[in-house]
């Protein structure tokens, strides 16, 4: 069939089952939006910034497992996608990002809105293409979707000159593609699986270390079966949250810098650590020489370059977790009696909880504590799909929220992108209209993509944003408090001209110069509330639930918390996971 390039893109979207596209138009991509104008089966969500469009496509992809699609124009449109692409690459999220380029005869002339998009995005994508002829467009689109979602998923950019979008050609969208140089791992070798099964059978104190790869591979059911049939306890990375119910008796929680005390203690005591779809990232590992010091390390991953990259791996299994866990289950024989180890691990978890609860009990409660905020969210919206921003809010959410299922915990783990949460939540809400999407935000990060309030209202994406407002860029302030002698440099969001240059603490009478978030929400047509007690928070959360049902409008709850609340425990930079501090004291 004869189609121009833009029409071939829409044909590709249909054939790939894409129902929603996030984007922002501009001169070079008007033909794409023109083709979309006629396609009523594909929803076009207009973001208010290209970075947000990519994050929204990312949230859509993480919530569903499908490829997220976004469109941006040439030049500044394309450069604005970079942070979103890097976020998706580090967290292995399947995206196809279509960018417009200036027409072929103009490329390289520094014409209006021209940028070297493939050059700029090469380091932040899994792969990218510049399409230099209409004839190769269909194949390139097919390849891009395949590369984005297969193997270790990731973002793919397709840069398409405007004259290619407008050129007509008679062809069909291919059913399949061949890529000789690209061979994503499938089943693991029988030999490596046998080695792993033997090591598990021989271990006295084995521990699973669950990562985001389990979520990406939709392998949670297989994981639960293995954990329960073997009785082996598990810890998770930040990205692995939700792969196993966080309230499961064998789930000891998150390890690492701000991990659960019990998880880090078990890690230090185990004699076999089985990493499943994890990168052994530096925030999880801490000082590598003190990481799991008594353990043999087994590492299962779909990406061979991840294995042995940051940590030694005594047993290496390259394979797709979709099949590895089932294959492994078939090989695991009867397990030795590990009642003592399970009791030991449970003891670590109990100890950790007692430390946290004692500290919580000592806190003043005029303002809600971070733990109270998370417990209120869990209690009032138990089935919430949680999306976080980055910083203290993200760590408190990771520590205190119960996440029961995979794909209900979306967070920028690898890149740590402030401004990710709100637009990603809009993408998740577009994908899952019936789910209640809650954004756990900080007053800093929410302002990094606050313009998306317009998108959320216009598109009727009724997410609930809970801002933990401490008037600071809290995580940086915490580091300044702990490691820079309380020199609070460029972190106070309430600061004004009359403040002393060398502020090192909030004082009574500090005036609030932060914006009025409730008023901003109202100005955009959303609903805004202020809460400064636990009761007000609970009431506004309940009201937000009502609002989303009745009028499909988003709600922003500006919840005041203590200005100098810290995230505990912390493994200080360069230290090992056995050197945790809680409120400054070793635990």
């Amino acid at each position, binding site marked *: 069939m004869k189609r121009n390039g833009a029409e071939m893109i829409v044909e590709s979207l249909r054939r790939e089952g894409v129902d929603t596209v996030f984007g922002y138009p501009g001169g070079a991509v008007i033909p794409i939006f023109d083709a979309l104008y006629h396609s009523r089966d594909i929803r076009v969500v207009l973001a208010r910034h290209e970075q947000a469009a990519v994050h929204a496509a990312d949230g859509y992809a993480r919530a569903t497992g499908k490829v997220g699609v976004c469109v941006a124009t040439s030049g500044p449109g394309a450069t604005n996608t970079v942070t979103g692409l890097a976020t998706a690459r580090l967290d292995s999220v399947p995206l196809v990002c279509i960018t417009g380029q200036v027409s072929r005869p103009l490329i390289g002339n520094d014409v209006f809105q021209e940028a070297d998009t*493939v*050059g700029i995005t*090469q*380091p932040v994508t*899994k*792969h*990218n*293409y*510049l399409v*230099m002829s209409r004839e190769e467009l269909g194949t390139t689109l097919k390849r891009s979707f395949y*590369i984005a979602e297969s193997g270790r998923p990731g973002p793919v950019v397709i840069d398409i000159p405007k004259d290619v979008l407008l050129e007509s050609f008679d062809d069909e969208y291919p059913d399949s593609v061949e*890529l*000789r*140089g*690209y061979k994503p791992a499938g089943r693991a070798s029988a030999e490596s699986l046998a080695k792993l099964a033997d090591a598990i059978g021989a271990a006295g104190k084995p521990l699973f270390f669950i990562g985001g790869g389990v979520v990406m591979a939709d392998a949670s059911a297989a994981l639960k079966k293995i954990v329960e049939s073997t009785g082996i306890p598990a810890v998770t990375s930040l990205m692995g949250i939700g792969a196993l119910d966080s309230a499961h008796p064998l789930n000891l929680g998150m390890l690492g810098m701000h991990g659960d005390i019990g998880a880090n203690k078990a890690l230090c005591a185990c004699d076999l650590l089985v990493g499943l779809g994890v990168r052994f990232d530096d925030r999880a590992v801490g000082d590598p020489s003190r990481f799991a010091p008594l353990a043999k390390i087994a590492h299962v991953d779909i*990406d*061979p*370059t991840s294995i042995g*990259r940051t940590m030694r791996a005594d047993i290496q299994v390259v394979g797709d977790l979709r099949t590895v866990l089932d294959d492994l289950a078939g090989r695991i024989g009867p397990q030795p009696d590990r009642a003592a180890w399970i009791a030991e691990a449970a003891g670590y978890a109990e100890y950790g909880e007692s430390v946290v609860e004692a500290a919580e009990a000592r806190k003043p409660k005029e303002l809600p504590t971070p733990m109270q905020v998370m417990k209120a969210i869990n209690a009032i919206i138990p089935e919430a799909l949680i999306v976080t921003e980055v910083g203290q809010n993200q760590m408190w959410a990771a520590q205190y929220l119960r996440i029961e299922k995979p794909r209900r915990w979306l967070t920028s783990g690898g890149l740590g992108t402030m401004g990710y949460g709100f637009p990603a939540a809009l993408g998740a809400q577009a994908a899952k209209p019936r789910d209640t999407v809650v954004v756990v935000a900080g007053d800093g990060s929410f302002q990094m993509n606050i313009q998306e309030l317009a998108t959320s209202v216009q598109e009727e994406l009724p997410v609930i944003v809970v801002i933990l407002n401490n008037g600071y860029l809290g995580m940086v302030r915490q580091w300044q408090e702990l490691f820079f002698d309380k020199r609070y440099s460029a972190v106070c969001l309430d600061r004004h001209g009359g403040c002393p240059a060398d502020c090192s603490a909030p004082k009574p009478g500090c005036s609030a110069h932060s914006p009025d978030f409730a008023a901003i929400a109202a100005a955009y047509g959303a609903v805004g509330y202020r809460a400064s007690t636990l009761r007000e928070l609970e009431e506004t959360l309940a009201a937000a639930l009502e609002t989303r049902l009745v009028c499909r409008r988003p709600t922003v709850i500006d919840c005041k918390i203590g200005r100098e609340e810290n995230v505990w425990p912390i493994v200080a930079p360069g230290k090992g996971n056995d050197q945790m501090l809680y409120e400054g004291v070793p635990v």
Partner: protein
Amino acid sequence: MKHVLSLLVENHHGVLSRIARLFDGRGYRLESLTTAPADEPGLNRITLVASGPAASIDKAAKQLEKLVDVIEVKVALEAATAE
């Protein structure tokens, strides 16, 4: 330490810059690089000499294999004397 690598690649847009960037990003220097059409149409044979830490050459080779347009990687020679 110098390493001689031989790659078979698809002659696609950007393949050379991807390979070069991979070495740059790991602290290697490219001492020489030649590319020529392979026997099969559409494929190129790239031979390169990189100098840098020995420990990570296998990791670099794995990363090269991961590139979509790279079909085959051979670490042909690793020797301090290779010229």
